[in-house]
């Protein structure tokens, strides 16, 4: 099937057309001015769509909501005894996410083995995850520029990587060229508003992909990270040095496209309530808090060690060596203390990785 093209002028028409079949999400500037914060929001025609700047958050919440109801309950009494009624929420609508970067889409590939029962540990299928995942079309927008925190090429990705994407969109001066990647992507491209892409448009797109890829420094070899981090596990001096400046907040994990941990709580009011699943983060103290009050991860040193170790050692050792990081760089970019995951990993392996952009002259 040949690639499609949609002009900038007709983009909103197409997204509106898409909205008949999908709940469409796209990056939106939600701030007070042209440089407001870009996040993913359900598409509305007059919304402030923005593709120039990278969304601050990853797209993971479009499939894995920050909180979702697992079951509603109602307590009551029957014949002088307590009684309980349960109700499972209906299936969510099909979604199409337009304009996410490749790294965000690759993030879901790290989620999948954890939730679809194919993982090496246990075979539990998480239907709450899967029913959303299977009903979501990811229309990746190839990055035309890379940031100094980007390192997708270190972990097997790239600015125009199609792994995890259902459709690959590339922004040209006059519109987007749309390439179908998976069968699921076809559903999004069946619109009369889309024109076939021309050869020159295809060529332009390939050129952009190459240029963006070339802007990144050559990746270091991270294959030793699994053993290196395991070896560093008890090196408290190493972790203390890396973690001293960490605030132990959840910004890195919550912005991360690959962090998949959650918490389950019951929230009730009177006789009505809901059991909800909400994001949790290994950087937060309550993550490992036990009912007794004991917390095996006493401080930020152990917590940071877990986050890095999980991504670059424990997960890979369970999932065929796949690193649980997609190199989006958000954890670095938004860290209030400039904790740099690239540096910790290369320090642990004992190599120097040239981070960031080729032209960059670091301080």
């Amino acid at each position, binding site marked *: 099937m040949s690639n499609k093209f949609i002009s900038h002028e007709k983009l909103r028409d197409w997204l509106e057309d898409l909205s008949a079949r999908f709940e469409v999400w796209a990056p939106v500037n939600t701030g007070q001015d042209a440089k407001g914060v870009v996040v993913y929001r359900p598409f509305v025609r007059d919304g402030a769509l923005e593709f120039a700047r990278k969304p601050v*958050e990853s797209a993971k919440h479009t499939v894995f909501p920050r909180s979702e109801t697992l079951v509603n309950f109602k307590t009551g009494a029957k014949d002088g005894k307590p009684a309980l009624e349960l109700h499972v929420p209906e299936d969510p609508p099909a979604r199409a996410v337009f304009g996410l970067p490749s790294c965000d889409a690759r993030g879901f590939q790290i989620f999948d083995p954890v939730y679809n029962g194919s993982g090496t540990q246990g075979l539990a299928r998480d239907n709450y995850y899967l029913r959303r995942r299977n009903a979501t079309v990811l229309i990746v927008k190839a990055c035309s520029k890379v940031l100094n925190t980007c390192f997708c090429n270190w972990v097997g990705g790239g600015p125009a990587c199609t792994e995890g994407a259902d459709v690959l969109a590339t922004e040209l001066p006059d519109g987007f060229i749309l390439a179908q990647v998976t069968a699921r992507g076809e559903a999004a491209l069946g619109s009369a508003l889309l024109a076939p892409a021309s050869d020159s448009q295809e060529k332009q797109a390939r050129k952009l992909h190459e240029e963006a890829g070339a802007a990144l420094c050559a990746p270091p070899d991270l294959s030793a990270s699994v053993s290196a981090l395991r070896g560093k596990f008890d090196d408290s001096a190493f972790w203390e040095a890396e973690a001293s400046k960490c605030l132990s907040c959840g910004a890195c994990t*919550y912005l991360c496209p690959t962090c998949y941990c959650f*918490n389950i709580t019951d929230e009730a009011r009177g006789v009505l309530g809901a059991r909800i699943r909400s994001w949790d983060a290994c950087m937060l103290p309550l993550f490992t808090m036990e009912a007794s009050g004991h917390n095996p991860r006493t401080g930020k040193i152990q917590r940071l060690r877990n986050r890095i170790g999980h991504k670059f050692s424990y997960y890979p050792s369970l999932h065929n060596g796949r690193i649980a990081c997609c190199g989006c760089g958000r954890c670095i970019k938004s860290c209030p203390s400039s904790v740099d995951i690239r540096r910790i990993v290369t320090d642990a392996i004992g190599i120097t990785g040239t981070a960031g952009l080729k032209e*960059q002259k670091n301080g």
Partner: protein
Amino acid sequence: MAIHEQLKKIILDTLPGVECVIGWGPGQDALHGSPVFMRKPEDVDSFMDTPLGAFGAVNNLALFLPELSGKKVGVVVKGCDSRSIVQLVAEKLIKREEVVIIGFPCEGAADLTKIEKALPEGREAGEVTGAAIVGETLKLSLGSEEISLGLADIKADKCTRCKTPGAVISDAFAGIAGKAPEVRDEYADLAALEAMSLDERFKFWEREMSRCIRCYACRNACPLCVCRDHCVAGSRSPHWITQTDSTRDKLMFQIIHATHLAGRCTGCGECQRACPAGIPVLLLKRTFNRGVAEIFGYDAGMDTEATPPLLTFQVEEAHIKEREWQ
């Protein structure tokens, strides 16, 4: 000798008597500084060794003091950071004798958000590949592109109303403390919000808070947040907020944080700086700061002997007219 060279000398002199000295070193790119914990003399080499130098000394390092209590540590402070230390000492959350405070005449610190806003449309701070301060301008490279920004335009808001460019208290000081400027905080940021109707203000918060991801960077970046790992944000008893992704609960947390800081906040603005979602959370704290100044004439972080006004009382309150209503 340049200020940062003088500071390095003081730090080297301080190191033998302390666990470490906390200062600023290079961050992930030309624009970012980052806290650095200097334990050995060679760690001092990278101190302030960044394109932005002292202008990039953004983090309030007082944050790290409570967790290090029991150990003697040195800390380099801007004037505003020293106020956090004063407040921590006043509340006996750290011991004065355990901290070696190293001050310098601060001329302001950068606001990364302002830098990004000053870049051309569609460009972002992450594209910056190089930076240098030349006189009163910041020269940025974005690949082959060069952009100049006036330092005054990219200075943090708090610097424009700073009363304490030198440290309020210090054990060592690099250079000469300038005269404290005669500035009055007019709370222009609050006035801008208050120019809106009540309805618009509420919608403003609804929109801003909808971006909150509940990462609690605001809380963890606050040097005066005492609860740390025991925050009510995640507790079931007390159960102030649910774990749902609701704007109401996210705003409620901000109100909780601001209320806990009422009469204690020094306005360092780290909460807002730390917020990845760019939510102006400092506004709520400044609301209380203004109220506390009006009612009690109190400014937190100026006097180690002061009692925070909400932890004490007067039998007759001069500025509370509680009988105005009824």
